């Protein structure tokens, strides 16, 4: 079994990079109660890819459409900016409704564009993700995004924490809350735009939410929640991936199932600790 898995080691490395980056950002996503922003951003990025494919099939958009990642990135960052500004200004529509509208429209637009795209053979795999297709080059590209984002989060941890926990007080102490929020959302949009091309919307959403929830269930400090989130994301990626290859299961759902098992164990452990 190990030798079979070893054939796909580059794919596993790529999955681990995605798991690491998404699980760190996921802590903010869960604590700030914006989990569906993660899902909406992933759908917006996928709509960007779908648009690139549709334009390419019609000979529109020139050379740029041969690089769907550019579209995914532009759409993802535009979405991140939209949500960060919405958080700050709170126009008439409730924030969760705005996220819901964006998610539905982006998902439908992606499906419609893909339905009419004429290039490529496995469009839906592009949108759903194909972990096994990750190459060594892809892993390096993912590392090129993940490392600066993680360093930014390490360096500006205090600032991201403060504007997430209590923005009003942060503002009175001179923190430019809108800018820090936009920066946080920017890193989120960046990671999602790159990760979803390989992992797909569902798996990215999983890595943003489930590991952080596992951490939240068990941790009693911010350091611990990050450590548990990263640990559970890595473990679920390895376990899900390793089981999916020999049993011929789709890797993404297998990893999500492993994340679910870990979150369930954390929930049971928390219940046990409370009763003790």
């Amino acid at each position, binding site marked *: 079994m190990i030798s079979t898995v070893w054939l796909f080691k580059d794919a596993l490395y790529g999955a681990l990079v995605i798991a690491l980056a998404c699980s760190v950002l996921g802590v903010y996503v869960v*604590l700030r109660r914006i989990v569906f922003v993660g899902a909406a951003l992933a759908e917006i990025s996928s709509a960007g890819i779908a648009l690139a494919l549709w334009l390419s099939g019609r000979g529109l958009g020139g050379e740029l459409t041969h690089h769907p990642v550019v579209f995914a990135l532009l759409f993802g960052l535009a979405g991140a900016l939209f949500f960060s500004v919405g958080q700050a200004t709170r126009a008439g529509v409730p924030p969760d409704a705005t996220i819901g509208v964006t998610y539905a429209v982006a998902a439908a637009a992606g499906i419609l564009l893909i339905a009419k795209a004429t290039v490529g053979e496995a469009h839906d795999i592009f949108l759903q993700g194909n972990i096994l297709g990750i190459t060594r080059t892809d892993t390096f590209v993912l590392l090129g995004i993940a490392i600066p984002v993680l360093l930014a989060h390490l360096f500006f941890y*205090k600032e991201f924490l403060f504007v997430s*926990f*209590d923005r009003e007080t942060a503002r009175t102490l001179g923190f430019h809350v809108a800018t820090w929020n936009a920066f946080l959302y920017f890193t989120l949009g960046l990671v999602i735009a790159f990760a979803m091309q390989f992992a797909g919307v569902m798996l990215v959403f999983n890595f943003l939410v489930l590991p952080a929830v596992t951490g*939240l269930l068990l941790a009693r*400090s911010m350091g611990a929640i990050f450590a548990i989130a990263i640990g559970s994301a890595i473990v679920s990626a390895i376990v899900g991936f390793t089981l999916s290859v020999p049993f011929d299961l789709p890797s993404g759902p297998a990893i999500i199932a492993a994340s679910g098992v870990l979150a369930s164990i954390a929930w049971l452990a928390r219940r046990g600790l409370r009763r003790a």
Partner: protein
Amino acid sequence: MTAPLVKFEHATLGYGRRVVLSDLSFDIPPGDFLGLVGPNGAGKTTILRAILGSLKPMSGSVTIALGLRFGYVPQRDSVDYNFPLKVTDVVMMGRYDRIGVGRRPTREDRQRAIDALDHVGIADLAERQLSALSGGQKQRTLIARALVGEPNILVLDEPTNGMDLVSTTQILSLIRELHERDNITVLMVSHALNEVANYVERIALTLEGSFRIGNVDEIMNEQVLSGMYGIPVEVDRFDGHRIVVARRLATRERLTGTGGEQRHD
């Protein structure tokens, strides 16, 4: 004469084109203990936002003394207790601007946080989870966080909201003690006139677009309050405490609303 920390000069405040309060002129001098009182929707938060600099006046001016540091205590429920933070971690946030962007708190910052907790009487809770504290303890934590930044003025937004009688008395006594012991300027925003009036030295009362400020004795008299509230009001004294009581309206007034019923949304 000492320059005021905050100075309103004919300031009109509002949002977009909607004016909430107009032609406000008052000062907050150093050493003041001011209660900003009024029902919900009367403009307290608007004035507070103008003082904290997050709302520019539509006309006139609001001048903040150069280098003024606010020690802001938000409404207790505005803080997200879902974050797994220890009490010291929360208090240290009050020094984040002094620590600097991208830097980590030092041992000295941690010690100052513990000192601030000691100052408000909960040093023993330093390692506890914020979410596990009682309402009064959470409020003390937020006050400690405001104090650890060594502010010139302590600004508290509804510090006793949702508290029982004992916790309310303890928190108000603590705030008064901090003012008297440290001579720190205090601005306390509250909807509860009866609570605030017995602790502060001056009251700014805002109601339905009108605004009045003065010493407690000037504001807490029947003529002024009846005029502001639009209904007959009694100010009684009991054991040195002032108590404001609305006189019972006659049946006709209650049915027709001619007693000057106020909106308390």
